[in-house]
């Protein structure tokens, strides 16, 4: 069984509030860059599937040379092989461009049965690469996955958490599976793993290696573009502190104020 985990290098969540609009636009982000926190669950699930069903896990990312660090993080957790997809022509790709690059790399790497992704990146927040990848690969799509029940007979059965409840669904392989936070508890990189990652030689595949044309990816091919990146407007509210002689009187006053706001 071949498993591929697609990851992204993103800012550390704790530092997201410090990122300016200018940094987001230029891509020159000063915050600490880490393996996208949602992708930790995908890496973990890849390793768990390797244990359960046998096979190999490959981790892959689209990004500049420094994105190798995100791949090394996955190696330090136990993934054996990694590929960096880096070419100046990839810059400015939208979700469909990124999906096309990943799909070409997955095809080149050999047939994959299950392709895992995190729910979304903490920077782009679109969650569109998984569906894009499924369509470009002709694979089935499973999102919001909270449990992989079984893989057998060319099919995968999972549980998904939807608004109205929990769905159990079986789809044919290959499948792109976008996992949710409830699926597992990601392990930490091990000491031995970190040593292995430091020494790992990670292949870099470029546009030509993937058989893609420059016009199919990057800024020129992007169908959706971010404009006017800005901080959200600050709340302009002035807090009214409610304090009466007793807790009950305070509660009564607050209840009156909220009834008057017509929000109840």
């Amino acid at each position: 069984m071949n498993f591929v985990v697609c990851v992204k290098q993103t800012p550390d969540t704790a530092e997201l509030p410090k990122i300016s609009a200018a940094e987001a636009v230029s891509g020159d982000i000063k915050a600490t860059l880490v393996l996208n926190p949602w992708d930790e669950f995908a890496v973990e699930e890849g390793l768990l599937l390797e244990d359960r069903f046998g096979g190999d896990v490959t981790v892959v990312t689209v990004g500049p040379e420094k994105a190798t660090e995100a791949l090394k993080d996955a190696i330090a957790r136990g993934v054996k092989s990694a590929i960096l997809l880096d070419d100046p022509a990839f810059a400015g790709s939208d979700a469909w461009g990124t999906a096309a690059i990943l799909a070409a790399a997955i095809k080149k790497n050999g047939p994959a049965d299950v392709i895992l992704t995190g729910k979304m990146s903490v920077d782009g927040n679109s969650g569109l690469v998984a569906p894009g990848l499924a369509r470009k690969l002709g694979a089935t799509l499973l999102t919001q996955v909270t449990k992989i029940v079984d893989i057998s007979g060319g099919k995968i059965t999972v549980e998904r958490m939807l608004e109205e409840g929990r769905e159990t669904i079986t789809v044919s392989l290959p499948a792109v599976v976008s996992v949710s936070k409830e699926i597992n508890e990601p392990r930490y990189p091990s000491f031995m793993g970190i040593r292995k990652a430091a020494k790992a030689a990670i292949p870099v595949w470029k546009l030509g290696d993937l058989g893609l044309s420059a016009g199919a990816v990057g800024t020129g091919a992007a169908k959706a573009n971010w404009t006017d990146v800005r901080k959200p407007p600050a709340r302009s509210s002035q807090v009214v502190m409610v304090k009466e002689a007793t807790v009950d009187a305070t509660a009564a006053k607050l209840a009156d104020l909220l009834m008057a706001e017509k929000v109840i």
Partner: protein
Amino acid sequence: MSILVYIEQFDGKAAPVSWEVLGKARTLVDQLGGKLAAVVIGAGVEGVAKEAVSYGADVVHLVEDPSLAAFRIDPYAAVVEDLVKTHSPKIVLFPATARSRDLSAVVACDLDAGLAADCSDLSLVDGGLAAVRPVFSGNLLTTVRFNGPLAVASVRARSFPTPEANPGRAGEIVKSGPVAPTTGIREEIKSFEATATGEVSLTDAKIIVSGGRGVAKDPELGFKLIKELTDTLGGAMGASRAAVDAGYIAYKHQVGQTGKVVRPDLYIAAGISGAIQHLAGMGNAKIIVAINKDAEAPIFSVANYGVVGDLYEVVPALNAEFKKRLG
């Protein structure tokens, strides 16, 4: 048609956000010209199509078949893609629910159209869609603009008001059947276990009462009191990441950067300090009430009303007061 809106239904009941999106699309079509179309897919869902007319659609494409009873991506996407190819709308809008988000992505990718996911506002600039969406986990906003003849967006719940339904409104319902083969579908739903009936989803909730680290002294009692107030107000129960990580309550209740982004009319934060990551998830609430023992807690700087006090006393007192007022 100039705009097509996908109406999500589950078990014959429309997701309320569908009407919010349809209402906004109505105002956009009134500027853009042309017709506002909606698509309803399922089995035995004519009632939802009629509702779509009452909420503002000029034409509703009602696509029914037993094989379409439950949502599955391939057959549903085939229907929407066929409508887009036949009628060439400029804009296709979806609610940003789990299923519709997947559908929007598949349709846009197949048609090589740009997609803005989880939008919080929509407008027209030079006749083209300008879609506002949060990025960097709510810490930044961007306005997405599109290249190409088609723009696709999914819209978060409670971004727009629910339009007033007009049951007498005239509109055309066009019936048709499935587009893709009805056998050999790659997705097979094995079972579905519905969450407790009557539970309001956080993203659709008008009122949310949330608990945080402040319940540490007795988490079980703390969330019981919060639940009682939630039920009195007919709202949904939320929590901060701290409370979820500590194991006080399930992840599905988490509000914030790594949980749900909500937009209620009223958000009551009990024992939540108001970390910036939490504010990223609820900062767009109309009215925020903070209840916290620590008068210096950052939550008070974004709240409209604040009470410095013990949530174990204030929350039940507030519950009793609302019970009196709401009968």
